[in-house]
C-alpha cells in the first residue's frame, strides 16, 4: 500500500526505472529492522551474560575480593601470587597439560581408527556405530560413579579383566601414579562425537582418487599417508580444537572420582578455580585464574590455526 502512495508523488518519466529500487529499498529497510529485532535476544544475552561479565571479571581479576566486603584493587598481585607463590597453580597446570597432551592425540587416533573401521557397508556396522556412540551421551556424573566402581582395585571390572589375562592391576584412583591415567582411560568413553565427525570426513574422500592411486600401485600406507590423512585434515583439525578446549575444562570427572587427589595427582586447573572461588571465596584470585585459562586456550587455538596452514588441506569451493 505504501508503495502506491509514493507512486503519486513521482514524476512519471523518472519514476519508471527507479520504481523497483525504491520499492525494494523500502522492503529491504523493513527486512533489516526485522532481522535485527530477531537477532536481538542473542545480542542482549551477549551483553548481559558474556561481554558484561567478561569486563567485570577482568576487573575482578585485579582485585582481592571475598564477595562479602567490597573488592580491593591490587593490580597484578593475583598474577604475581600465581606465578611465584602458589604451588597448586603449577601443579594444576601440569596435570591439565599432561592430560590434554595425552588425551587429545589419543582421541584423534582412536576416532580415526574407529571411523575407518566403520566406513564400510559391512553388516552390523550400524550396531557398532551406536555402541561406540552410546556412552558419550550418558551423564558424566553417572559415568564417573560407574567408573569409580570399574576402577575398584579388588572387585572392579577392569582389574578382574586384567587378572584373567594374568596382569595384576594397579590401585588406579588411589595410586598417585595411576589416577590421572584412569581418568584418561575413562575419557575414551567420550570418543563418540569425534568419531562421527571423522566418519563424515572420511566419507567425503573421493573414491576416484583412491581408485586412481591404487591403479598407480599405491599400497595401504601410501593411501593413508598421501590421500586419507590429507583429505581429512580439516576434520582432524576440528577434532583437535574441540578436544583441547574440552580437556582444559575437565572438572566433573576429577571432582567426583578423586577430588584432585591422591597427592594432587589429578588436581585439574578447573578444580583449582573451583576451590578458590567456591571453597575459599577468593573471587579475585579465581577470576585471575579463569583469565589465565582463557589466554591459554586462545593461544592454543591461535597457534593451531597458524600451524594448520602448513598441513591442513582445504578445497576452496
Amino acid at each position: 500500500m505504501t508503495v502506491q502512495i509514493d507512486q503519486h508523488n513521482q514524476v512519471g518519466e523518472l519514476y519508471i526505472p527507479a520504481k523497483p529500487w525504491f520499492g525494494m529499498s523500502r522492503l529491504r529497510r523493513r527486512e533489516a529492522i526485522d532481522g535485527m529485532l530477531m537477532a536481538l535476544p542473542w545480542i542482549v544475552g551477549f551483553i548481559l551474560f558474556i561481554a558484561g561479565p567478561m569486563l567485570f571479571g577482568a576487573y575482578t581479576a585485579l582485585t582481592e575480593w571475598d564477595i562479602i566486603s567490597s573488592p580491593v584493587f591490587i593490580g597484578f598481585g593475583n598474577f604475581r601470587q600465581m606465578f611465584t607463590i602458589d604451588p597448586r597453580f603449577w601443579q594444576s597446570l601440569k596435570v591439565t597439560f599432561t592430560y590434554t597432551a595425552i588425551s587429545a592425540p589419543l582421541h584423534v587416533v582412536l576416532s580415526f581408527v574407529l571411523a575407518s573401521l566403520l566406513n564400510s557397508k559391512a553388516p552390523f556396522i550400524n550396531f557398532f556405530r551406536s555402541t561406540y556412540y552410546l556412552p558419550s551421551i550418558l551423564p558424566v556424573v553417572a559415568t564417573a560413579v560407574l567408573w569409580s566402581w570399574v576402577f575398584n582395585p579388588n572387585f572392579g571390572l577392569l582389574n578382574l579383566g586384567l587378572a584373567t589375562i594374568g596382569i595384576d592391576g594397579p590401585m588406579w584412583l588411589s595410586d598417585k601414579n595411576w589416577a590421572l591415567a584412569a581418568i584418561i582411560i575413562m575419557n575414551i568413553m567420550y570418543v563418540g562425537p569425534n568419531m562421527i565427525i571423522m566418519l563424515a570426513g572420511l566419507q567425503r574422500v573421493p573414491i576416484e582418487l583412491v581408485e586412481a592411486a591404487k591403479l598407480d600401485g599405491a599400497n595401504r600406507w601410501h593411501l593413508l599417508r598421501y590421500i586419507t590423512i590429507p583429505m581429512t585434515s580439516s576434520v582432524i583439525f576440528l577434532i583437535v580444537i574441540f578436544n583441547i578446549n574440552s580437556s582444559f575444562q575437565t572438572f566433573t570427572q576429577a571432582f567426583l572420582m578423586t577430588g584432585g587427589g591422591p597427592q594432587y595427582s589429578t588436581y585439574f586447573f578447573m578444580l583449582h578455580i573451583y576451590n578458590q572461588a567456591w571453597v575459599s571465596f577468593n573471587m579475585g584470585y579465581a577470576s585471575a585464574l579463569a583469565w589465565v585459562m582463557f589466554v591459554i586456550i586462545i593461544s592454543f587455538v591461535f597457534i593451531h590455526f597458524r600451524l594448520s596452514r602448513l598441513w591442513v588441506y582445504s578445497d576452496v569451493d
Partner: protein
Amino acid sequence: MASMNFIRSHKFTDRLSQGGRLILLLILAIPFIFPLIWLASTALKSPTEIYISPPIWIPQPLRWRNFIDAWNVAPFGKFLVNTMITTFIPMMGEVFISAMVAYSFARVKWPGRDKIFSLCLATMILPGIVTFIPTFVMFARIGWINTFLPLVVPSLFGSAFYIFLFKQFMMNLPMGLEEAARIDGASTFQIFTKIILPLLKPALATVAIFSFLARWQDFFGPMIYLQKAELKTLMLGLSSFESMMSGAGGSAIGGGFVSSNLHLLMAMTFLMNLPCIFVFVIFQKYFIRDMVMSGFKL
C-alpha cells in the same frame, strides 16, 4: 581368465578384510559395552553378591526392588521435578530462540550481520568459567542463589552452538523461499513462523535432543546455584548419594573399601542413564545422520 582371477581374488580379500574388520570392531567394543552390562548386573545384585570373585554376571535372583529402594534413599521424586524444571524450560528457550536468531543470521539481510555472527561463533571457544564467576556474583547480588532462575534465564537468549547448527541447516534451504510471502506483505517474523519453522523439524529435533541431554546432565551449574537440599536436581542427588558412601575427598568405591549400599548406588546410576538411553535409541538418526549432515558441513 587373468582378469577373472584378479576379480575373484579381490573379492576374496575383501571378504577376508570384512571379517577382520568385524573382529576388530568387536574387540574395540568391549570397553564401551561391558561397563554398562556390569552396571546393570551390579544394580540387580544383593549386597553379598557384589564382593564375590570371580564375579557373578547374572545375579540369582534378579533384585528388581533395588530400584525402588534406591529411589527411596533420598527424595528423588522431588529431585526429578526440579530436574524437569531445569531441563525443559531452558530447552524450549534454547530451541526456539536459537532458531529465530539463526534465521536472522542465515536469511535476513541487515547491516553488520556477518560481523555479529562471527562474534557469536567466536564465543564458542570462550571457556565457560570466564563468564561463570562474574555471572555468579551478579546472580548472588540480585538474590537468585537457591532459585532456578540462573539456570533458566540465560537460556532464553539463545545459545551460540545451536544458532550455528540451525544456521547451517537453514543455508541449505532453497533460496527465494520467502520471496513470494514477502511480496504479499508478510513480516519477517511471520515468514519465520509460517514458512521456515515447519521446514526446520529435523533441525529442531536435533537441537532439542542435544539441549535435553546437556541440561539433564548438567552438574556444575546446579551444584553452584542450588545449595538447598529441596532444590537439588537428580545429578546432584546422585553425586551426594555417592559422597554419602565415600566421605570427603574422592571416591571410596574406587578405593579398597567395602560398602553395603553399592547395589543401590548402581541401581540409581542405572536409572539416571535410562532417559538418555531411551532418547538415544528412539532418536538415533538425529544423533548420527543429521548431526553430520546438517551441522558439520565442513
